[in-house]
């Protein structure tokens, strides 16, 4: 997709790392409940942390989703980009996620650049200086950058209230993120992180009798590993919805796919964790 961003001869911005991981509150809040499955999942998150540490990002674009924390149905943005110098999170009670609430540095300028280019390219984005961050933004970040000291640009996607932005739109938005990063005139090092999914049902009895659809999850992860991520942009609402109303969060992963192109991912963890009520995956791209 041509996004109309003029590449410069002195392209200096760099996408230095990319990853995606589930963000179920229990991952941080209920480590005992998952037993050996949890240990294997945490080992995968350790691998992502090492990749991010080695890549030394100056900024992390944190693609997560709304949970009726910031927006109600009177004004639900499809994609909202944080453009603040600082955020606060996680906003949940500490006993739920066991991550102390704290101030997290933001980086205003990349956020505003993303919004400007996205609007130039007809993407339906809004922006906010007052995004509240919940487990969706914070849980994977907590494992990847435990000090939460690298400035972030949170991007909140509507994956909860139909009509939602399509996987195709999120893939294309990921392509735009990549182009915005590469077109930067400075030497800022940027990482992207997508959070959420995989299969799970939230606040509703599962019609299949269980919260997790391992077959859906494995198909999804196989596409990532096989460098066929672009095909996931063709997923439909109904195909994703069969894996749970929470499975729509895979849009956040698909956005990362757009940024990474067809580079194969390394799936560093997958566990169907009933205690966390979620098919929990984690993947990293070696860029």
């Amino acid at each position, binding site marked *: 997709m041509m996004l109309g961003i003029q590449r410069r001869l002195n392209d200096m911005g760099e996408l230095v790392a990319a990853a995606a991981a589930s963000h179920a509150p229990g991952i941080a809040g209920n480590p005992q409940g998952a037993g050996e499955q949890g240990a294997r999942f945490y080992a995968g998150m350790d691998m992502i942390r090492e990749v991010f540490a080695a890549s030394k990002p100056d900024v992390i674009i944190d693609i997560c989703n709304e*949970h009726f924390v910031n927006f109600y*149905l009177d004004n639900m943005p499809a994609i909202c980009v944080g453009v603040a110098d600082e955020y606060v999170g996680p906003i949940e009670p500490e006993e739920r996620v066991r991550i102390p609430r704290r101030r997290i540095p933001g980086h205003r300028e990349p956020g505003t650049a993303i919004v400007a280019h996205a609007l130039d390219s007809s993407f339906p984005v809004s922006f906010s200086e007052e995004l509240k961050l919940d487990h969706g933004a914070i849980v994977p970040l907590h494992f990847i950058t435990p000090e939460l000291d690298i400035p972030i640009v949170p991007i909140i996607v509507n994956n909860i209230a139909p009509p939602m932005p399509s996987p195709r739109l999120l893939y294309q938005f990921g392509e735009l993120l990549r182009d915005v990063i590469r077109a930067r005139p400075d030497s800022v090092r940027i990482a992207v992180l997508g959070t959420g999914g995989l299969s799970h049902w939230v*606040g*509703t*009895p599962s019609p299949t009798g269980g919260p997790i659809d391992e077959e859906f999850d494995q198909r999804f992860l196989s596409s990532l590993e096989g460098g066929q991520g672009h095909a996931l942009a063709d997923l439909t609402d109904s195909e994703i919805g069969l894996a749970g109303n929470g499975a729509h969060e895979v849009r956040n992963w698909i956005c990362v796919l757009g940024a990474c192109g067809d580079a194969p991912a390394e799936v560093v963890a997958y566990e169907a964790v009933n205690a966390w009520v979620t098919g929990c995956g984690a993947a990293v791209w070696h860029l």
Partner: protein
Amino acid sequence: MSTYQAGKLLFQMQHDVDLRMEFQSHPEDVLGRYDLSDEERRAIMAKDVAFFYVRGMNPLLLIATSWTMGVTMPEHRSALASIERRA
């Protein structure tokens, strides 16, 4: 009837501690400011999660905000399970 107004009340109580405290002390005053049906007013006062679920309130909204009615998470799950048993 849409559950939009009831959901809006629950969403706003989630974020506004003053509204939540007013609801606890003078619930009828708060409910009177929203365009709610008699059934919705009854359901809120009765902490009837199942009513709103069956009426189509977004389940992610409902589970995020039912605590503002005084519903605990086990009570929420139990209410959903009772719907499943009746189905």
